């Protein structure tokens, strides 16, 4: 199961109602709106808890998402790019979030930098279709992954701190 903090942040994210994928014209719009609302809420929650850890934006149709995420370890901020597409079967299928920079640097990753999510994620998601959205995927999938993998990788020296002005 997911840890307490994650669960708590998860509950704070509004659940979605519309079950629609990018192919469902009008309903997708509806769905997209809900996605955005959930994201805004989640970001606001994060900011409010001084726990802001990513930036996201989407294309016009809302089918492709990209942005950045960061992790602070030993007072150093490690920043990585995020990109993922909304699958056609969405929302039945969870989006596959990818950190292309870290491709090949860790075992918990698929080809193309897609993060390897925990065994719990997929059934959890499947149980919560259509309530879960992008925000949930970020909170449940990427957040815990970063918290586990980044310190490990930094220890292994796989990644090193790069001076960044942004943040």
């Amino acid at each position, binding site marked *: 199961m997911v840890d307490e903090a994650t669960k708590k942040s998860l509950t704070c994210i509004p659940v979605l109602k519309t079950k629609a994928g990018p192919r469902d*014209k*009008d309903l997708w*719009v*509806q769905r*997209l*709106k809900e996605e*955005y*609302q959930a*994201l*805004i809420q989640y*970001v*606001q929650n*994060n*900011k*409010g*808890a*001084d726990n*802001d850890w990513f*930036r*996201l*934006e*989407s294309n016009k149709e*809302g089918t492709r998402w990209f942005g950045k995420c960061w992790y602070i370890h030993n007072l150093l901020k490690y920043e990585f790019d995020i990109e993922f597409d909304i699958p056609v079967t969405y929302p039945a299928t969870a989006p596959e979030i990818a950190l292309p920079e870290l491709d090949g640097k860790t075992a918990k990753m698929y080809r193309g930098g897609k993060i390897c999510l925990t065994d719990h994620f997929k059934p959890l998601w499947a149980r919560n279709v259509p309530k879960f959205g992008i925000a949930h995927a970020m909170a449940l999938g990427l957040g815990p992954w970063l918290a586990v993998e980044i310190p490990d990788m930094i220890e292994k020296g796989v990644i090193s701190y790069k001076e960044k002005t942004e943040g």
Partner: protein
Amino acid sequence: MTAVEWDEVKRLAADFQRAQLSSTVQRLSERNCVEIITKLLDLKLLDVVFTTDGKEYVTPQQLTREIRDELYVHGGRINLVELVKLLSVDLNQIAARAAEIERADQNCSLVLGQLIDKTYVNRIAEEINERLLQQGQVTIGDLTRHYDLPSDFLQMVVEKQLGKIIHGKQDKTDPQVFFTESYVARNRACIRGALAAALRPISVATLLSQCGVEERLFYSIIGKLMETKQVPGVITGKQQGGSSMYIPAIYSKSQNDWVNSFYKQNGYLEYDALMRLGIVDHQLFVHKHFPNEKLLLLPSFAVGPQIIDQVEAAVEEAIATGSMVDIMPLLPSLFEPQDAGEILTEVLKNTKIKSPSQNMHIFCSTMVLTEQFIQKLTKPFDAIIQKKAEEVVSSGAYLLAQAESKLQNNRNLIEQYEPNTKGDRREERRKKATGGKGGGGTQGRETRTKSTKKKYLRGKATAGDDSDEETTSATGKTSGSSHKLEMLSIAEIKEVLAEDETLQEEDLGELIAEIANHLYPSLNKSGLAAAETVFESTMASSAQSRRKTHSDLQDKLNAMFVNVRLFEKGIKQFADKDIQQQLVKYLLKTLCTEITNDVFSYIAQENMFQYDQTKELSPEIRLKILNDSPNECKEPLLKLHKSLNTSSIEEFLNCVEAALGPGVCDMILRKPDKKKERPQLLGHRQALLEQLTSSEDPALVLHLTALILFQAMTQTMLHASGRFVSNILTYLQPHLTAEVFNTLQRYHDLVLKLLTTGSDDDSRSQIVNALKEGMPAIKEIATSFKKHSSTE
């Protein structure tokens, strides 16, 4: 529609971006904050104050500001403890801040753990002013209670604001009291009214309670009122505690008027009356009130000179006329006899100065008797006394008393030292008592009663050891004083006095009694004196005779003594011891016994013993006298008495000498004188011859003749009874002629015969005739033998 939807999506996307781009809140955990601040504090980069719950920090400036705010909110006064609660900052911090505020700010002050603002001070000043206006006066004490502030702070506040905000006045006597002018005026009016209305003395306490005026204020007001003469009266007594009195002038005036009028009318003042008027210290009052009058202060009256003058005049008159006066009628009826007595003593003091020669006596404390008057009163007693004295002397009571007192003294001498002195003391006291009476006055009476009382007690106390004294005194007339002869009893004196015409009035019984008491000792003394003179005069003769009897007795004793000696010599002429013995016995029984009796009776007389003088002294009576006689006499007398029973003339003579010697009879025994012996012998013979010539009794004639012959023969005297005639004759036989002897022998036989023959008439008459016939011859022998012997 979809377009709208998309727009909406776009807008949401923009919102999302905005949300992402908005800066995140910098958030520090509590723990971090605490650490940071401690770090800062350590580095002295930050100065903050912790709150009591530990959750907040306050900077000192903030704290100061908050304190000020709270002060303002609370109306200018706040307790530091309250601040602690409100600001939840430690009291120490607040106190420090508050002190700082007080230091920095002129308007704030820290009083009793409370921060007080100037506005507050002004406000309470206004309140005080209001209060003052309402109540007329306030005290700091009240304010302290009301505001719960220390009195010196309030005092300072009030004094500062006095005249500015607080319109009032400070009490001069008590700086803690403030009042308004109107209040004072009101009180003054009240008091003035009350005092003006008062007609009798009123205690300040009741006045205060009635007027509802403060005591302090009252005194200051009354002082002013007195100064301005607005109050008719005076305050007496202490100014504190309400014990003082207000005495209205009208009251004291009427009091004085009454006193004056009473005094003018009556000439005296009664303290009780003054007391009723409310004058407590009457003596002082009288002194103050009549400073010019000479008032005599008695226990319950003050007496003016008028009365004293009256009394004095009366007394002087009495002196002038030599009579008596009772001052009681001259005095107001209220006066007690003892007051009168004091007045009298005072008056007498004056009159003594005027006429010191007059001797006054006070009786019943109100009566004045002049000496002359008393003399007059005693006059009738002279005759009575004289009579009594004679009576007493003649009845022997005086002698008895005298003897008793003498006996008493002797007893006392014999007894222990203590009773002796007791006797002396008694004497002294008696003297004193009588002496005191001479001076007269009540004093003399005093000593008298006291002395009798003591004597009485003494008599009781010593009753044990001199009980026979009591019994002897019981035989006397007096029962009160055992040694003193009472010439006149008090009752008798009273009787005589009551007959006096000047004392005929009623109610004079007491006076008579007192006079009697007064006169009693002197009268008795004079009575005793009179008795003494009477006694002396009777005794003068008796004393003379006594002296004579003394010398007579002396002569007689001397003669007898010599005779005894001579007789002894005569006895010694007899050779026969038996006859000698008998003769000695006879001599002792007759002449010697006579001498002894004379000695004893003399002793008895000298010592005033009681015995029957008419009878011969028997040995028993002698013994009794012996017992009663004084010690130094006892032994010689006892010896004398005993020597009579021995058969030795020599011993007897020695005893007589001792008994007559100095200390016992004080008689002089002449030395045996040869020259004197002769006339003695002649005298004896002459006496015998005379007896012989005059006697007709044949036995006596023969007896005498025998004695004469014996004397002529032996030139010694013989004392013998008729029984010894035959013995004498046998002794004479060798010296006589046979004829003479035969005549004598015959006569002797005849005498014997006469004595032995009973009542046989014939023979008796015969013998008598024969004796008668022979008598001249016998007589002749006696007388002629003398001649014969004288011729020889």
